[in-house]
Each structure stands twice: as structure tokens, then as C-alpha cells.
């Protein structure tokens, strides 16, 4: 009990160093609560989506919360180290008045226990409140599904408390080890004796370079976004390790190189900075690396979720080229087991539309003989192979999902009266492939006209094409040329299985269109796979709102953490630099020069994390874009612009946080 009372006195007496520590640990608790809540409730937040989506997001946030735990350990370590360094004098004092190692250890343990209790309780309360409030405000605004306990689940809060408690146990062990290794009295002299110059840590440097290169290579090289999420996670971990190692070891290496360059080094602007940087990078490399990682995470999370949210129309358009569409199965289809005629189908859909106050503005019927993935090579057209899909930048440009249609069906669909010769075709592609002829085996077909499918889905990263042949006989011939092994019966079966789709252009309120779709689906009128753009827009919007909600939530967490580290760094560096600048002033550096030196040094420290975060984001961008194609967002430019804009806004926020925390620094140095 004595030690607890002593510890409480200590914490109260040294508010200046304990408050930042408590703040840090509380924030870590908050972040873990939020992250684990997100993980636990991911399936509830995505309740409107398929089980696959729920499972995938749950998995994603599992990785997210693991990264958060790693981050918490690193930051706690850093904060604790800072605390110890600031307290060396105080601990030495205690040992002078007769505290042995055991007593010091008990006292420090009691302090950490009190800190643990405060930060866990405060963190749980604030974390739950923050999660709940943001859910109620932001979530409702974005239309995230209701009726979930987000933020007030006891499970994640208890888990987060457990994690933070374990981290505190780690800190107790670290402190005990520190006390075992150091005699506080000796430390007192060491503090005033100045620091040893850090050596270049070659092993760490090499490890850093290797992990960063490997991480970058993995991030660029993973071309299958769905199957390789765990590989991407490994890439993320490698990049994190690389960033830490390079910030700690690489910076010392670079600054030592700079110092060897006498013409560069012996200039007023560089002299003081380079020497200071060599020393301060050891202490601050880890802090800067943390800022970099957090900034990268913020950028990636927010840019991705904004892209998804803004991409809702694209996502809907790619899967729903028309307002309303269905596969028609009527007596017109040879294999169909139905008595409904095409005319009856048309009339009944029209009746249902009228009932729901929806006007059909245009109706298009397409009959596709077959659909094939082909590689439309300049020399030869061939069936697409696995190799065509596995390029570094996604599937090969020439891979298209090709709809094959007869001329008769084409003319019926368009109402035109086009004629073709025996070796003539009509070609339309979404890929700008300007072919004047296509070669199927030894058949050379002349392109006699161009036209696109009026409605094509664009679900995959491949292009779409329409080839119109003169008749079924020509189609059979070409199919045989593409795949000589196919037997006659299979070929016939394939061609007789022509699909008829009906596309409607509608006018009416989204809610009415959804009601109409639901009724068409329920009524037996020969309409299969009914798709309503209005309906899927509503679903997709909900899904992406959930993403955006989580993105903003986590982004705020990351920004808070960045602010915390910035604050810590400024306090730590201010204390370390105060004496240096006083000496410089006495030696003959004017106040203005001192201020300029500080600024230049702070700015270097300020820009590095931002630049590296930008590079990390740029490297991660291709992979993220590939993930985005899974959702139907193919617009690279849009993602790039949103990422750049996010970077801009983040840089602004960062500047503001920096300005605010730099005041802390100036106040200490002055």
C-alpha cells in the first residue's frame, strides 16, 4: 500500500511527464476498443450484404486489429522509454535517500499499475463513447444499418482491456530490466556527460532495405487481389519493419555520409542540423517511422473508402447496364419448359410497371448465341488462357468477354437491315481494338461494320466485345476453329442454348422501381435473374456507406495517434535541444539564426514522414486499385485523384497539428 501511495504522489508531482504518458496509453486503449469493436461488429455493419462480404470484411478488420496491437506495443514502448529517461534524475534521488533496486522496482510497478487502471478505464469509457457517438451521428448520416450494438459490446472492450493490461505487464518487465541494468546514480552522471555518438547499425540497415524491397515487390507483384489478401498483409508487415529499420539505421547512415562531405557539412545551415540529426535520429527514428506508418494507413483507408463511396454509380452501372433487366424464358427458347409466349411476357411486365407508376421508355431484346472469353490477338483470335489473366497489371489488354450473335438476331435487336458476306462480321469492343480483320484458325474474317452491345455488364477487369456473324453455320465453323477438340454434339448444345435478355429503360421513383422488380421476381412470367439498378444502387450504397463510416472512424483514430506522437516528439526534442541552443547563442548565433536552424531542422523531420507515407501509398495504390476492380471500379485516374486529394487534406491537417505541437517545442527551447 505504501508503494501505491508513493506512486500516486509521484504521478501527481510529475504531471508534466505522466500526463502525456497517460494520454498515450488511454488513446491506445481507445484505438483498440474501436478497432476490435469494428472487427466484432463488421458482419452486423455489413448486414445488408452477402455472407461473403461479411466474412471478407471481418477478416480484413481482423488484420487491421492485429496491426493496431503491434502498433500499440511499439508506441507504449516508446512512451515508456521517454518516461524513464525523464525520470532518471528522480529515480537517482530516491536511490540516494536509500531506495534499493527492489524498492524502486516496486514503486515503478505501482506507478504503472495506477497508470494501467486509469488508462484502461478512461480508454474504455471514451472508446465506447466515441464509437457509439460516431455510429449514431456519422453512421446514421451515411445510412449504415441500425440495430447494432456498435461500441457498447462488452466483448471487444474486455478484449482491448486485456491487451492493454498485457502491454503494461510488458512495460513492468522492461522497467525491471532497465533498473537491473542501470545504477540510477551512474545514469545521473551519464545524462550530464552527454551521449555517445550512435554507430551505423549495419544489420538493421540491411534488414530494413531487404524488408522494404521485399514488401514493395510483394505489394506490386501480387496480381490476384482476392486470393492474396494474406500476402498483402505480409507485404504490409514487411514495409512496416523496413520503415522502422530504415528510419532508425538508414537516417544515421545518410547523415554520416553527409557529414563526410565537407563542403556540404561546414555551412551554417547544415552544420548544426546534420550533427543534431545523427544523434536525434536514434531516439526519434521510431517516432518518425510510426508517424509514417499511421499517415500511410490513414491515406489508404480514407482514399479507398471515399473511392468506393463515390464509385457507387460505377459499381451499379457495371453490373446493371440497364435500369431493369432479366433473362427471358419463353416458348421462343427451344429448351425452355414454359408456356408463356414472348408477347405474354412483355404484356405482363408492362402491366406490373404501370401498377407501380413506372414508365417503360425503351425495351431492348437481345439474343446471344454464346459468350466466350477470348484473346483478340492481332494475328489470331484464341480462347483466353489462365496466363492472359495473370499479368502484373491485371488481365491482358486483349482479353475480352465476347458475345456472339447472329445477324438475324442483331437486325431484330436494332431494327436495322444490315447485310454481311460469308466472311463478313460486325465487331464492337470496349477496348479500342481497331481491327480490320479477325483470324479464327485459318478463316480470315473481314470487319464490315462496327457496333457495340447496347447493354453489357462490365463485372471483371476484362473488356467486352460483340461479334455478329452471318448465321449459325458460320458461328459453328468459327467455334470449331477456336477449339478444334470440341465435338459436334457439344457444339450444337452450346449454340442451341442461346440466351435472350430483356433490357428496359425506366422512368419512375427508385422505390417504385424496386417494388416493380420485387413483383416481377415473384410473378411467374418467364423472367429469370431479375436485376433492378435502383435496387442494387440502394444495396451498394449501404455497403459502401458502411465502408466509408469505418474508413473515417479509423482515419480519425490514426490521425489522433499521429498527433500524439508528434506531441511526444516535440516534448522530447525540446528538452534535448534546450541546452544546445543556449550554447549556440553564447558562441555567436543570433536569436533569429537559432530560430531558423530550429525551423529547418523541424521541417526536415516534418517532411520526411509525409514524403515516405506518400511513397508507401503510391506503392500500395496498384494493389488497392486491383481490389477496387473487384467492386467494378476501373477508373485508375479517379482513385489517383482521390488519393492525391486525401494526401493534400491530410498534409493540411498534419501542418496544423505540427504548428500546434511546435509551440510546445519552442516554449521548452526558449
Amino acid at each position, binding site marked *: 500500500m505504501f508503494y501505491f501511495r508513493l506512486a500516486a504522489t509521484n504521478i501527481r508531482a510529475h504531471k508534466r511527464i505522466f500526463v502525456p504518458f497517460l494520454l498515450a496509453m488511454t488513446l491506445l486503449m481507445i484505438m483498440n476498443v474501436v478497432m476490435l469493436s469494428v472487427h466484432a461488429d463488421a458482419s452486423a455493419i455489413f448486414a445488408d450484404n452477402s455472407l461473403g462480404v461479411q466474412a471478407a470484411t471481418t477478416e480484413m478488420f481482423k488484420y487491421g486489429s492485429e496491426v493496431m496491437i503491434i502498433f500499440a506495443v511499439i508506441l507504449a514502448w516508446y512512451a515508456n522509454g521517454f518516461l524513464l529517461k525523464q525520470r532518471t534524475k528522480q529515480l537517482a534521488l530516491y536511490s540516494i535517500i536509500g531506495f534499493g533496486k527492489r524498492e524502486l522496482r516496486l514503486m515503478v510497478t505501482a506507478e504503472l499499475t495506477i497508470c494501467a487502471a486509469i488508462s484502461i478505464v478512461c480508454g474504455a469509457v471514451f472508446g465506447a463513447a466515441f464509437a457509439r457517438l460516431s455510429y449514431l451521428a456519422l453512421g446514421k448520416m451515411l445510412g449504415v444499418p441500425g440495430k447494432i450494438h456498435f461500441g457498447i459490446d462488452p466483448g471487444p472492450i474486455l478484449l482491448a482491456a486485456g491487451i492493454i493490461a498485457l502491454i503494461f505487464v510488458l512495460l513492468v518487465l522492461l522497467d525491471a530490466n532497465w533498473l537491473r541494468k542501470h545504477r540510477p546514480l551512474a545514469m545521473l552522471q551519464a545524462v550530464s*556527460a*552527454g*551521449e*555517445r*555518438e550512435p554507430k551505423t547499425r549495419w544489420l538493421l540497415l540491411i534488414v530494413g532495405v531487404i524488408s522494404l524491397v521485399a514488401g514493395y515487390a510483394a505489394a506490386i507483384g501480387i496480381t490476384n487481389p482476392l486470393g492474396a489478401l494474406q500476402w498483402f498483409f505480409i507485404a504490409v508487415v514487411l514495409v512496416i519493419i523496413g520503415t522502422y529499420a530504415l528510419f532508425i539505421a538508414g537516417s544515421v547512415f545518410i547523415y554520416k555520409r553527409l557529414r563526410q562531405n*565537407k*563542403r556540404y557539412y*561546414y*555551412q*551554417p545551415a547544415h*552544420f548544426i542540423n546534420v*550533427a*543534431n540529426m*545523427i*544523434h536525434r535520429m536514434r531516439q526519434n527514428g521510431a517516432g518518425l517511422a510510426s508517424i509514417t506508418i499511421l499517415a500511410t494507413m490513414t491515406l489508404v483507408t480514407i482514399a479507398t473508402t471515399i473511392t468506393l463511396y463515390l464509385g457507387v454509380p460505377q459499381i451499379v452501372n457495371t453490373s446493371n447496364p440497364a435500369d431493369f433487366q432479366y433473362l427471358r424464358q419463353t416458348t421462343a427458347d427451344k429448351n425452355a419448359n414454359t408456356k408463356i409466349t414472348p408477347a405474354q411476357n412483355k404484356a405482363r411486365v408492362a402491366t406490373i410497371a404501370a401498377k407501380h407508376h413506372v414508365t417503360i421508355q425503351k425495351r431492348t431484346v437481345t439474343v446471344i448465341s454464346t459468350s466466350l472469353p477470348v484473346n483478340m490477338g492481332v494475328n489470331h483470335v484464341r480462347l483466353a488462357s489462365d496466363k492472359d489473366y495473370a499479368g502484373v497489371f491485371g488481365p491482358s489488354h486483349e482479353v475480352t468477354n465476347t458475345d456472339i450473335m447472329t445477324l438475324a438476331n442483331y437486325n431484330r435487336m436494332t431494327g436495322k437491315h444490315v447485310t454481311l458476306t460469308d466472311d463478313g462480321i460486325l465487331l464492337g469492343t470496349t477496348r479500342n481494338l481497331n481491327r480490320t480483320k479477325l483470324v479464327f484458325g485459318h478463316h480470315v474474317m473481314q470487319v464490315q461494320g462496327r457496333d457495340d452491345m447496347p447493354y453489357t455488364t462490365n463485372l471483371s477487369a476484362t473488356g467486352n466485345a460483340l461479334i455478329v456473324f452471318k448465321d449459325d453455320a458460320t458461328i459453328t465453323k468459327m467455334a470449331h476453329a477456336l477449339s478444334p477438340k470440341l465435338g459436334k454434339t457439344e457444339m450444337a448444345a452450346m449454340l442451341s442454348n442461346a440466351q435472350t435478355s430483356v433490357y428496359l429503360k425506366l422512368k419512375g421513383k427508385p422505390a417504385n422501381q424496386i417494388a416493380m422488380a420485387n413483383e416481377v421476381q415473384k410473378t411467374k412470367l418467364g423472367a429469370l435473374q431479375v436485376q433492378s439498378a435502383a435496387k442494387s444502387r440502394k444495396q451498394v450504397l449501404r455497403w459502401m456507406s458502411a465502408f466509408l463510416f469505418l474508413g473515417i472512424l479509423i482515419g480519425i483514430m490514426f490521425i489522433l495517434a499521429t498527433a500524439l506522437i508528434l506531441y511526444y516528439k516535440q516534448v522530447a526534442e525540446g528538452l534535448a535541444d534546450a541546452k*544546445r541552443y543556449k*550554447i*549556440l*547563442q*553564447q*558562441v*555567436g*548565433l*543570433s*536569436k*533569429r*539564426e537559432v530560430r531558423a536552424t530550429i525551423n529547418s531542422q523541424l521541417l526536415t523531420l516534418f517532411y520526411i514522414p509525409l514524403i515516405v507515407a506518400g511513397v508507401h501509398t503510391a506503392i500500395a495504390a496498384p494493389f488497392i486499385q486491383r481490389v477496387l476492380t473487384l467492386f467494378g471500379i476501373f477508373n485508375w485516374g479517379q482513385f489517383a485523384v482521390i488519393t492525391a486529394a486525401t494526401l493534400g487534406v491530410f498534409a493540411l491537417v498534419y501542418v496544423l497539428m505540427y504548428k500546434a505541437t511546435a509551440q510546445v517545442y519552442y516554449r521548452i527551447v526558449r
Partner: protein
Amino acid sequence: MSTILELSNVAKTYHTRFNANAVHALTDISLSVEAGEYVAIMGESGSGKSTLLNLIAALDKPTAGSINLNGTELQTIPESKSAKFRREHLGFVFQDFNLLDTFNVFDNIVLPLVLSKTPVPEMEKRVAALAPQLGLDDKLAKFPYELSGGQQQRVAAARALITKPELLLADEPTGALDSRTADELLKLFSELNATGQTILMVTHSAVAASHAQRVLFIRDGQLFHQLYRGDLTQDEMLVRISDTMTAMLAKQGDGNTANATKGAI
């Protein structure tokens, strides 16, 4: 001999922020230092000697009177130029060395030269000339934490001398040294003086002061007495200094009353 430093009727009054009462650190000081002289200023803590040094170093401005350093009136130097002036005309040695622990010995020595944008070959030439004189030629690559106190103080002296200052100012330079290293440093100062370096040293150590050619005593912000060494040996000088200090301490009581009266006026 030409006069290098001339103080006439210098006074310095501090106003503390929460106290209406003014503190008279220096009341009326006039003195002059000739080129090549070695002058020690002695006084107890609080006698005003550090204030005097700060004024001469242009770190602070006097409330009244004028200070002329080698033809330049210090009051006429604007704030923005005072750092440059200090760098070019004055050398500083402090009690606690004030070396930068992030620099090695060479870099610590050339710091003022770098600030004045001296070319690298010139810096190297000057260090090569100066370092052997101070016994630092094999220590240039070392860092301050690797050196003893005496060595560190010699590095600080080298830093002060590298700009070839007209006046070397030393503020209790032996304060943090043991008697043997202190003795070495004082010997070094004498040698420097013998080569023509003007030195103004502030100290409360009678031994340190006994190395100087002239010793000024200040008390309560005023010059109390001065001693010329003339042909005396160092030991004889030490005795004279001790006597003067005894006399000064004996009159302490009178001084206090006098000061109090002045404060009232």
C-alpha cells in the same frame, strides 16, 4: 599600448517583473583594458561581475554609461548584428565548458568559423596551427564525452581563440576543474597572454586571479580596488590579493548600509 576596452560610468539596473524594487547590479563602473593585458575581475557571488561580463560580451545592454570595444560603441550595434559582432571580436570560455555533445572536437572548435562562413581549407589551417598549442592535435576526432574536464576546457578555449578575437573573455574558467588541471589552464592563459592575447577573466578564485597582470575587485556593483602585479611573483601576488579580500570582507557591513541608502535615493 592602445586601449582595447573602455568602460565609462556603466550602470545596470534590473527590474523584476513582480517587484517594483529595482536591483542595482552595477552602479558606476569605469575601467579600461590595454591591448595585450591580462586582467582578472574578482568579487563574491552577487557582486555584479557576471553582469559586467555579459555587458562587455554584448549579451546585454547597460542602463547607463558606455562601453567601447576597440573603437566600437557597443550600444550602437543593433540587436541583429550583435551575434555577428560577438563571433568576430570576442572569444568566450565558460565555467562549464559549454561544448556541444553532438560535435567532435574539431567541429566544436570551428563552430564560430562555420557560422561566419569561412572556407573549409582556411578552417583546417587555423585548427592545425592552434591545436598543438593547446595539446589537442591528437584529440580532434574525439567527442566531448571522451575527454577529461581539463581537455574539454582546452577545447572551449580553442573555440574561443579560433576567430583570433581581440579580447578573450573567461567566466570562472577554472570553476569546474580540479586544482591541477586548473593550474594547467591558467598556465595556458599566461602563455597565450605572452603571445599578445588580451584576456579578461572573471573569477572568485584568488589563485586564478594571481596569474593576471592586474586584478580588479568589485563589490556591490562598484569598483572597490585594483592591484597591479608589476614585478611580483605569483605567490606574492596571491598574498596581496588575499589581503585585499580580507579588507573588502571586513568593510562588508558598511557597504550594505551604503547600498541601502543609494537604493532609497
